[in-house]
């Protein structure tokens, strides 16, 4: 795992903790992520070959800001309550776009891209469902940010402890 991948993954941590206190919030952020990332990928593909490498970053920033801005407005029309609750996590998608472009995500095989989107979605929805269920069951901590960290930690620990063939070094 190189440095850029670390940056990309740590950026995902913010919505993963902040926007998973309920299933609807998590689903909304994930859907918006998919829509914006797809639109961004498609439009970058159209202009990338026509730009000199130095101006690709600017183009990426412009596109990411436009797409995320429009998506945020659409989300406000769709459900203002959802937006007030988790709008700033949705705004982070713009940064995510730029970082993903920088790491060459959009030039990688579609299988890789799909894997990241599905993994992110599975984690968001899983964590959202888990926190909502635990919160409904009376465990208030689960709906707060520290509870999110603890649950994510437990999930990672379970993943590590799962017996599976370890790749040889």
């Amino acid at each position, binding site marked *: 795992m190189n440095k850029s991948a670390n940056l990309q993954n740590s950026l995902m941590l913010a919505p993963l903790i902040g926007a998973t206190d309920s299933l609807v919030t998590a689903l909304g952020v994930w859907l918006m992520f998919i829509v914006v990332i797809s639109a961004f990928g498609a439009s970058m593909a159209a202009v990338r070959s026509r730009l*000199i490498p130095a101006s690709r970053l600017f183009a990426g920033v412009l596109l990411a800001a436009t797409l995320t801005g429009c998506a945020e407005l659409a989300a406000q029309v769709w459900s203002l309550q959802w937006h007030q609750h988790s709008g700033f996590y949705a705004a982070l998608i713009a940064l995510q776009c730029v970082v993903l472009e920088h790491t060459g995500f959009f030039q990688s095989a579609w299988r890789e891209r799909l894997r990241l989107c599905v993994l992110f979605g599975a984690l968001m929805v899983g964590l959202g469902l888990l926190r909502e269920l635990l919160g409904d069951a009376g465990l208030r*901590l689960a709906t707060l940010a520290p509870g999110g960290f603890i649950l994510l930690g437990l999930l990672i620990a379970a993943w590590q402890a799962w017996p599976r063939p370890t790749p040889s070094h």
Partner: protein
Amino acid sequence: MSRTSSAVILLLLAGLGIGATYLVQYSSAPRIAAEQRRIDSRNLLDLLPSDSYDNQPLEQPLHLGSTALTNSTLLGGYLATKAGQPVAVLLRSQTIGYAGAIDLLIAIDANGKLLGVKTLKQSETPGLGARIADWPNTWFQAFTGKSLNEPADSGWALKKDQGQFDQIAGATITSRAVINAIHDALRYFDEHSRQLIGSGLHE
């Protein structure tokens, strides 16, 4: 693929981006504003039974005079009426809790009795003071029906301070601030009731 064509494409992207965002903003702003008003009024007005008033209280803000009270500040007020008769005054009050400002909405009926209290904004300790934000709220229900004279001044405090109200466990400062703000609002209503109830009727 030259420097010039790159610059032109960038300019084009910037123009398109600004245009698209502006158009989307322009077309969605009225709907967002309407939705915001709907949320606001639903948030504010679930304090009152829905059949107890027939006006749009948020469209009828009260003109408050001096608004800095002993322990709190009044940010605004609304008048709810039914068939032209004043039913309740809603006062928006801000006080300082343990962690920061607390915004309360305090509903007082025309006779000066408290109809309900609701927290609009707070940043108290999660799990302790932040429980004032729960809705419906059993702690606030203890205040319903109270007024400036019932209990008397000394009763408007926590049991810990020789008053008659329970506190939220683990949140003395928050509870104290809220009680003082409610008491302030009732006192303000008592002193200005004619002006509060009257000023709405002229409009």
